């Protein structure tokens, strides 16, 4: 038996429910997407090439500027020192001014600024110190790390 195919003619599928579903999905993904993305950035550093590869051997860096961070009150604050001079608790603005003055006085911004922090200092305080140095125009930020024997964990 031969069945003749008849064109759909003027019957158009109703897309309205599909559009409704797609709109709901679209709104979900729009709201679900993290808007924080736009406000996030990065700080970058290049480790001293002499520090590896290998066993993480000690390298001698003679920085113009050495920033020290000590833990105060189990992470509540950090005691900021620069070249042995105490600037105070969470004195990151003072650190920025100090570094800015040094740069204006002709300090080489390519020379390493070494941040040495006590192991219990919170990461946010280390980043604030790094931020102060970058804002002041220093480009070569290095981190002093304590040497441990391989396999030793914190």
């Amino acid at each position, binding site marked *: 038996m031969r069945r003749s195919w008849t064109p759909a003619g003027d019957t158009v599928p109703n897309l309205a429910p599909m559009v409704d579903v*797609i709109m709901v999905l679209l709104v979900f993904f729009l709201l679900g997407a993290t808007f924080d*993305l736009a406000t*996030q*950035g*990065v*700080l970058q550093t290049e480790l001293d090439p002499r520090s590896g590869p290998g066993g993480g051997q000690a390298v001698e860096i003679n920085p113009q500027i050495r920033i020290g961070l000590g833990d105060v009150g189990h992470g509540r604050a950090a005691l900021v020192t620069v070249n042995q001079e105490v600037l105070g608790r969470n004195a990151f603005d003072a650190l920025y001014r100090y570094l800015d003055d040094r740069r204006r006085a002709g300090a080489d911004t390519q020379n390493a600024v070494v941040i040495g922090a006590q192991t219990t200092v919170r990461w*946010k305080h280390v980043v604030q110190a790094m*931020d102060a140095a970058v804002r002041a125009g220093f480009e070569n930020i290095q981190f002093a790390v*304590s040497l441990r024997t391989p396999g030793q964990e914190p």
Partner: protein
Amino acid sequence: MTLNLAPMVDVMMCLIIFFLLATKLADLEQYAVDLPWAVSAREVDSSELGRRVTIIIRRAEDGDVVAEYVVADWDGRQVTDRVLTPAEVGRLLADRARRAERSDEKLRCVVRADREVMYRHIEVVLRACGSAGISDIVFPANQGQPPEEAS
């Protein structure tokens, strides 16, 4: 007269596919970490970072005494479905550095650390990067002043 909705559906489908893919990719690199704040944090597109290994250091549920290391490859996929020990992080970084060297590519390490973890947990990663020969380190941060200082 009926409105032709087909082009609108096409556009919306494209948008949905975009958001589906984008959110999946962003998922791991945005891994529930309270980032520190930095005024000088430079905004970068993730494609600018190139080939990278992302180490996520987050606080353990019982506080900040122990940090948990989660590692993601350059495509944002988690390397393992469990938390790694510092020694395993070191081995993994060395392995990825060797692979990148074989394919003659520069490898970056993105250290995505919670702002309240202790510096010693970041030290572990820095030391491992030094041993593996990865010199280019990136620290994601929120742009701006810390809220307590900004207010």
